[in-house]
């Protein structure tokens, strides 16, 4: 054949002229490209930092609460003027405890009990929740009626906000919730040490409340705990059983292919769809109660199953076939081989996957909204069938509250949630490090 191109078209190698191959320009492009990568990672990390910082800076104050510690006279005149408490125990329940507190504070501040306007402002310093606080004290020990006790009264949310420096006091008096006179009183109380910040145990134990200073995640924690328990008890065994079948027994046919595709898809179905499923099947069809953590747990179980199955299958796959061959060779049945040898070896991987699945379930909100866990629940649920909320749902409800003090509560609750997630994830990492096996 003939060729149009002669070899001379390509220069011989003997002494090639130095070619300009644009090194400078190309290295500039190289540096630019690298910089894009670093910029992208920095962008992501910056926002991770911003997110955490915004939550922590807004929320760390929620773990302290302002209280007013003053001598309170449990005046019989106010609590039980007609001395009926022997005959009618309800009397102590309904007594006018806010007045007890108000009078005590007025006395400390030197406000006359006749000055109604001033009294109203005094009342504005203390939380409404002291009604239950004092009531519980009296009911626990009716003998304190008529005596004077030093009590730490929960301060009003507005006082709390100002005391923590979250409110701009340079704003005109008419534009804020606390008057100049009240601020003066606060300074007075603060100087005497009566007004002080204390550790806020209430945020961990209290139930829902419309008063930010008395609201806590107690009910939500219990609800979340029940749900995690249900997820663990149901999803772990079912997930492991399903994985064992699919990984060790299932023949390769269309049915198992279908299950395979199904599981992968279920892992990617939007969580809110599980909420719809729960609403239609568990509540509407089976008639389980709304707002119950049982239903929430079932929904989260279905949601977590694919994650656990995928992790378990990976863990089973990682156990080398030689182990199976060894056990089978000794005359163990296939079932014995799996349960005695393969499963224990795969356990760390399975548990790691389960913990990560649980952590996801713990932070999940959307499906729980649909099954009615958005509820104002002030009392602890005693069984999983009682109305309850969950930690992330409580965050959602508080996030929707308009009051400034709830922003602090919300951030505080988020910190609690993130701490739980941190503990779970660190646990998973440690578990993996501790038991990881390289074959």
């Amino acid at each position, binding site marked *: 054949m003939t060729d*149009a191109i002669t070899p001379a078209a390509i220069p011989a*190698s003997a002494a090639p002229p130095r070619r300009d191959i644009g090194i400078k320009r190309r*290295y500039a492009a190289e540096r630019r490209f690298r910089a894009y990568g670093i910029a992208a990672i920095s962008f992501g990390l910056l926002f991770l930092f911003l997110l955490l910082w915004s939550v922590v800076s807004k929320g760390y104050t929620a773990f302290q609460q302002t209280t007013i510690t003053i001598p309170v006279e449990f005046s019989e005149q106010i609590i039980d003027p007609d001395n009926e408490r022997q005959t009618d125990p309800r009397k102590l329940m309904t007594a006018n405890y806010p007045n007890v507190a108000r009078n005590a504070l007025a006395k400390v501040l030197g406000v006359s009990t006749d000055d109604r306007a001033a009294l109203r402002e005094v009342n504005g310093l203390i939380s409404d929740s002291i009604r239950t606080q004092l009531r519980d004290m009296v009911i626990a020990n009716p003998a304190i009626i008529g005596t004077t006790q030093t009590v730490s009264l929960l301060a009003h949310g507005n006082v709390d906000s100002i005391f923590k420096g979250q409110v701009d006091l340079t704003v005109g008096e008419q534009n804020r919730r606390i008057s100049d006179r009240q601020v003066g009183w606060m300074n007075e109380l603060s100087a005497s040490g009566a007004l002080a910040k204390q550790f806020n145990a209430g945020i961990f134990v209290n139930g829902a409340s419309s008063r930010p200073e008395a609201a806590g995640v107690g009910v939500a924690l219990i609800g979340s705990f029940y749900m995690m328990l249900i997820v663990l008890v149901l999803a772990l065994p079912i997930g492991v059983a399903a994985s064992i079948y699919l990984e060790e027994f299932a023949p390769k046919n269309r049915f198992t292919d279908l299950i395979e595709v199904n599981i992968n898809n279920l892992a990617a179905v939007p969580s809110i769809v599980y909420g719809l499923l729960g609403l239609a099947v568990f509540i509407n069809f089976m008639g389980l109660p709304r707002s119950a953590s049982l239903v929430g747990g079932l929904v989260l179980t279905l949601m977590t199953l694919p994650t656990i199955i995928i992790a378990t299958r990976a863990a089973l796959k990682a156990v080398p076939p030689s182990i199976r061959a060894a056990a089978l060779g000794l005359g163990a049945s296939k079932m014995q081989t799996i349960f005695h040898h393969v499963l224990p070896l795969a356990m760390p991987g399975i548990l790691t996957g389960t913990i990560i699945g649980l952590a996801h379930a713990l932070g999940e909100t959307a499906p729980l909204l649909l099954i009615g866990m958005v509820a104002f629940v002030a009392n602890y649920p005693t069984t999983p069938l009682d109305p309850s909320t969950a930690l992330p749902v409580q965050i959602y409800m508080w996030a929707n509250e308009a009051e400034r003090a709830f922003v602090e509560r919300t951030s505080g609750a988020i910190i609690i949630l993130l701490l739980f997630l941190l503990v779970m994830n660190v646990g998973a990492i440690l578990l993996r490090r501790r038991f990881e096996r390289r074959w």
Partner: protein
Amino acid sequence: MNMMSEAAVEKALEQKMSDVSHKMIGKDVSVYYGEKRALFDVNLNVRENTVTALIGPSGCGKSTFLRCLNRMNDTIENCRVTGKITLDTDDIYDKEIDVVELRARVGMVFQKPNPFPKSIYENIAYGPRIHGLARNKADMDQVVEASLQRAGLWSEVKDRLHESGTGLSGGQQQRLCIARAVAVSPEVILMDEPCSALDPIATAKVEELIHELRANYTIVIVTHSMQQAARVSQRTAMFHLGQLVEENDTDKMFTNPDDQRTQDYIMGRFG
């Protein structure tokens, strides 16, 4: 399919042989992978317009040495090279020398054919394009055709230049990779066991191609097969346990080697 007459090749070779010039000079080259030393003070010169074969048992360091010649070892984590290697007069491990420029001058063909998942045309055009060697489309077409001609692949693929390079047979893929290397107009071409993944017929074609390329390029080839070394090379270097055992004219090496170990290896006593 050859474009040069046999006589022309011989003439060119004669001319080159008369004044032996060293294209690349390796002096005290050692390579470490982390703590492990893979190459011990190798001194090896590569003659211009010659095919130099590197032989030796597996793991002897022949591929490692080859990869030093265009600094492909840079891409491996923890790999450290000491000693000095020059290309013409440039120390290739000098800070002033740019690795991209070096590789444009010292091309490489790998053990397994690795065409890019692009069309045949794009595979060839890749090198010239990144280095800006073609001014326009016509130029590029010419470079592609010339390179495929050189690799003896033109007649086989000219009607399907825009089909995927991965659709070719193994031998064709390897010749495509050689054409790809040639397209950059390198001065030296390194070949790392280029025929180990090919069948005998494809191997024969590639060997023929190497023979022809010698006229214009300096070639260093690592091979596992001594017959191949004997067929394609003029100089042979024998490696053993990370050391250069012997370097000699191929004819001498296979008939009357200086070193006992070379003798044993060639006789098939080990390796």
